[in-house]
């Protein structure tokens, strides 16, 4: 195969690392952008540069945002006293897409795993305990994976929060949750939330 010039090869290589893209589809995408440099590539590059410069984690919940606090944390109507704990920003986005939850979130950024050297302090769990105290939280909803690590994390959090007296619930069992929330249809996500149980 003829190699494209060095810079373009580098671009293809970087694109191929994106989820859902392989070397072939990355090459196709780059070729399309190159053909439409003015209409597609330049605006894309500009927006990417802007977002890369402004994007950061919400200091309170861990959502990805363009300011210190994300829209959800800034919106006073979302102060319902309910806090939904998710593993990843993708789960938060899936729940928002479904429009089934009106409270606020706490993104852990992973699950406990001694073997992968991920401990409670790497997961914003101390921050969670503080939020429960400071924000007048009445219910913490755990929406974590059904894996051993996910469930260990859920139990860890329930254990840590026990002295605070906050009600801890989890999504209905039998519904794939956590990392799989993203793949669920909105109706199923809503049903899992409504059928949540005491943990």
């Amino acid at each position, binding site marked *: 195969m003829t190699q494209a010039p060095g810079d373009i090869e580098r671009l293809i290589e970087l694109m191929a690392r994106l989820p859902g893209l392989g070397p072939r589809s990355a090459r196709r995408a780059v070729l399309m952008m190159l053909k439409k440099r003015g209409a597609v590539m330049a605006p894309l590059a500009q927006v990417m540069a802007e977002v890369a410069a402004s994007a950061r984690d919400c200091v309170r919940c861990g959502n990805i945002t363009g300011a210190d606090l994300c829209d959800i944390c800034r919106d006073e109507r979302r102060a319902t006293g309910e806090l939904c704990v998710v593993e990843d920003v993708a789960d938060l986005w899936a729940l928002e897409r479904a429009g089934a939850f009106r409270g606020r979130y706490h993104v852990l950024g992973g699950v*406990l*795993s*001694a*073997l992968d050297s991920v*401990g*409670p302090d790497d997961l914003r769990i101390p921050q969670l305990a503080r939020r429960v105290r400071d924000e007048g939280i009445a219910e913490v909803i755990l929406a974590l994976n059904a894996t*051993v*690590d996910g*469930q*260990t*994390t859920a*139990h*860890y959090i329930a*254990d*840590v929060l026990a002295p605070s007296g906050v009600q801890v619930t989890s999504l209905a069992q039998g519904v794939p949750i956590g990392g799989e929330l993203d793949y669920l249809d909105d109706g199923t996500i809503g049903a899992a939330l409504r059928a949540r149980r005491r943990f």
Partner: protein
Amino acid sequence: MKGERVRGLAVASLGVSHFRSYRGVRMVFDGRPVAFVGPNGAGKTNILEAVSLLSPGRGLRRAGADEIARRPEVLGWKVSAAVRGLHSDHEVETWAECGGARQVRIDGKAATQVMLGRILRIVWLVPAMDRLWTEAAEGRRRFLDRVAMSFAPDHAEAVLDYEKAMRERNRLLKEGVGDAHWYAALEGRMAEAAALIVAHRAVAVSRLMRAQADAGGAFPRAELDVASDDPEDLRAAWAEGRRRDMAAGRTLVGPHRADLAAVYAGKGVPAGLCSTGEQKALLISMILANARALAEDLGAAPVLLLDEVAAHLDEGRREALYDEICTLGAQALMTGTGPELFSALGSRAQRFEVTEVGGLSQVCEMGP
């Protein structure tokens, strides 16, 4: 012909490619027992191993995916089979690329190893198990877990969950982590899995005992007992034992330490003290009991892989074994160095000749 034969689970056809001494062969089976005949080193056990990989785990040699790839090429390997499953027929493929993990596809769709256990049940007896009663407890535990898994495919998941949580706990112990919440969360996961494991193992032991009691007299009966901690107490034992476990650097109590004890019932002698032949007979008796109990549960006998079993039996016992297999309607895949070992089967079995030339094995069906 006997009356209604149970429709056993079966491998209807088997293809192996770049698998140990095979470059590529395809065999068609009709559901009858199958005898593979050939000299030492011809490639008979390799075929049984390929079939064993149609169930979850590392197969009957417990080999790593890379060990199996045909040398010297080492290009990866593949086993594909049409199987008559519990509920319907399926196309199963399992393979590993060079350096990669084993993968599974069922009816063209990516699948997990655990899903294999829901299609076929495979029970095997191999010469390495001759040491079962004299070796360390680990081998007996593994054997017991395979039996438990044959009755409850979910057993595999419980064992994996338990081991995962225990490895996590062991890491905390080794690193001297003191977070009690973390231990409690892991011990909770371990306790949940342990309750399932202990229950599945108890079912396996009682099913084996009952199915042996129903058997005729050709094979001895084993009195079985599994020594393990009460799962109700484990959680407290782990919580109280953290300091001791930390000193040891690992978890000292739990179902991962259980042992299976067997007594030759007719004599009251522990299996470990029995003669070589008696130990073998006990094992065959347990394997047959496993198959019988499964046939009762499922309405279909499991696939049996019996490596070099015929050679160790006198003529009377050999005939009793074959009669039992045929009554069960089980597809038993067997190996032996000479055709005379299988003559008592008459037309009740298919026969394949296995040969090896220059490090390359071939299989050829023999006429009736």
